[in-house]
């Protein structure tokens, strides 16, 4: 079963539109949703949590259509973390726990208290006085304390220092050790996603450019460093993006479409994305 399925989903806001989005997240997998600011990542997340209605297309989460009345029950199985905590700032961790206990049927106060201790969060301090890292940890503690099967994380690691980010990524890895657990995480910190994810989905200007297994993606492309003359001799359809300098050029190419004699470096995900965006601008 797929944890998330989006079929031909479109949503228009006048000056911006999600266009014909097709996307699947298999159960047990972690998918990173990458894209620049304004690419449509948060809109996609709002669509799949039924906080926004699509103009067309179908969305199902954990096997249930998001427009059906049963989806209300499915929200019990989804832990959501946004780019900030989004709780009224005068609340403290203890009050948040008390509110969530009346929100989620499977709320586990012991698990929550365990996270509060593990994250060293002061339970009686209003969380407006927390650091950003502490705020995000509180939001993550809430998301993980009602036995979710799916975590939906919207820029949950942005603005955090590398140590806190690493600690949080480790927690997400722990979560997916259960094969029924899945994560959709949006971020523009590609290195985080590369560390954590099985799949990478790249959203650009409201369109899904690709959604592939991380390793398959890195295998599909290669980076060639060459002179401008060598670049001109490469098959046009093989070149996805070019970076020129006074000394030569670097190009992202499709491995299958170039000669196997050509010396290719294995790109990281960030390389692939940057070259693809450049390629689009150059086209």
């Amino acid at each position: 079963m797929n944890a998330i399925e989006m079929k031909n989903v479109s949503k228009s806001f006048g000056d911006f539109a999600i266009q014909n989005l097709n996307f699947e997240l298999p159960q047990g997998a972690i998918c990173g949703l990458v894209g620049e600011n304004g690419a449509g990542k948060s809109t996609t997340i709002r669509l799949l949590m039924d906080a926004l209605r699509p103009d067309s297309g179908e969305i199902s989460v954990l096997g249930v259509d998001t427009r059906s009345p049963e989806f209300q029950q499915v929200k019990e199985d989804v832990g959501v973390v946004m780019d900030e905590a989004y709780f009224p700032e005068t609340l403290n961790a203890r009050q948040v726990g008390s509110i969530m206990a009346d929100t989620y049927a499977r709320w586990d106060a012991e698990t929550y208290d365990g996270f509060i201790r593990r994250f060293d969060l002061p339970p009686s301090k209003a969380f407006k006085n927390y650091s950003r890292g502490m705020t995000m940890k509180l939001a993550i503690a809430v998301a993980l304390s009602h036995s979710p099967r799916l975590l939906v994380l919207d820029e949950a690691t942005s603005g955090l220092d590398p140590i806190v980010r690493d600690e949080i990524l480790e927690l997400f890895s722990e979560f997916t050790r259960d094969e029924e657990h899945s994560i959709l995480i949006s971020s523009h910190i590609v290195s985080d996603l590369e560390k954590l994810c099985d799949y990478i989905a790249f959203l650009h200007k409201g369109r899904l450019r690709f959604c592939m297994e991380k390793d398959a993606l890195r295998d599909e492309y290669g980076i060639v460093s060459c002179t401008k003359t060598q670049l001109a001799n490469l098959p046009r359809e093989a070149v996805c993006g070019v970076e020129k300098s006074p000394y030569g050029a670097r190009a992202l190419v499709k491995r299958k479409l170039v000669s196997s004699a050509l010396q290719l470096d294995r790109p990281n995900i960030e390389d692939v994305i940057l070259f693809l965006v450049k390629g689009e601008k150059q086209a």
Partner: protein
Amino acid sequence: MKALLKKDIFVLIRQMRLFLVMIIIFSVLPGVNMTTFAIVYCGMLPYVAMAYDERSKWTELAAMMPYTPGDIVLSKYTLGWMAIGFATVLSTAAHLILGRIFPSAYSLALSEVFPSLCIGFIMMAVTLPLMFRFGVEKGRLLFILLIVVLACGGGALVQGMVGFDGEIPVALNTFFSLGIPALAVVLTAISVPLSIVMYNRCSV
């Protein structure tokens, strides 16, 4: 809905201490005007809670949690009804107890408190759908406009009906004792589903 009410109460107790003290003071001061003030203040608490929700972006998060639109809308009405009920009970108790000590000051009949309670309900019923549709910022302006129109219009109407001799006509008395409660019930019955529609329209 219990969770949402709890959240609003936590926030209001923390942020609105002075406001809550004023409600208590107005409730125990003698006279129907003071009671009406307290009730109108209580009727405004849902807007205050909504303003804090908007500021913290709670509304966005709540849309992704297992709350139905009905839960979200009804929690604000319930908060207002509970607050109005609290002010009414407090005012009634103050008049009953203090009326024995200061009979001349606390001469308010209990029947005079009831129309104030209904006015509080009517005020919420009329304004909350606007708040859910336009947000607290714009909704508040419409609320002020509505209060001015109602106060001026109602005042002029009552003055016109009472006349120079100061005698309250039977029709006006009947309106206060039957018409206002009926209006409160009818408007509330329309207002709650209307607010749910407005809330849904806003989240589309």
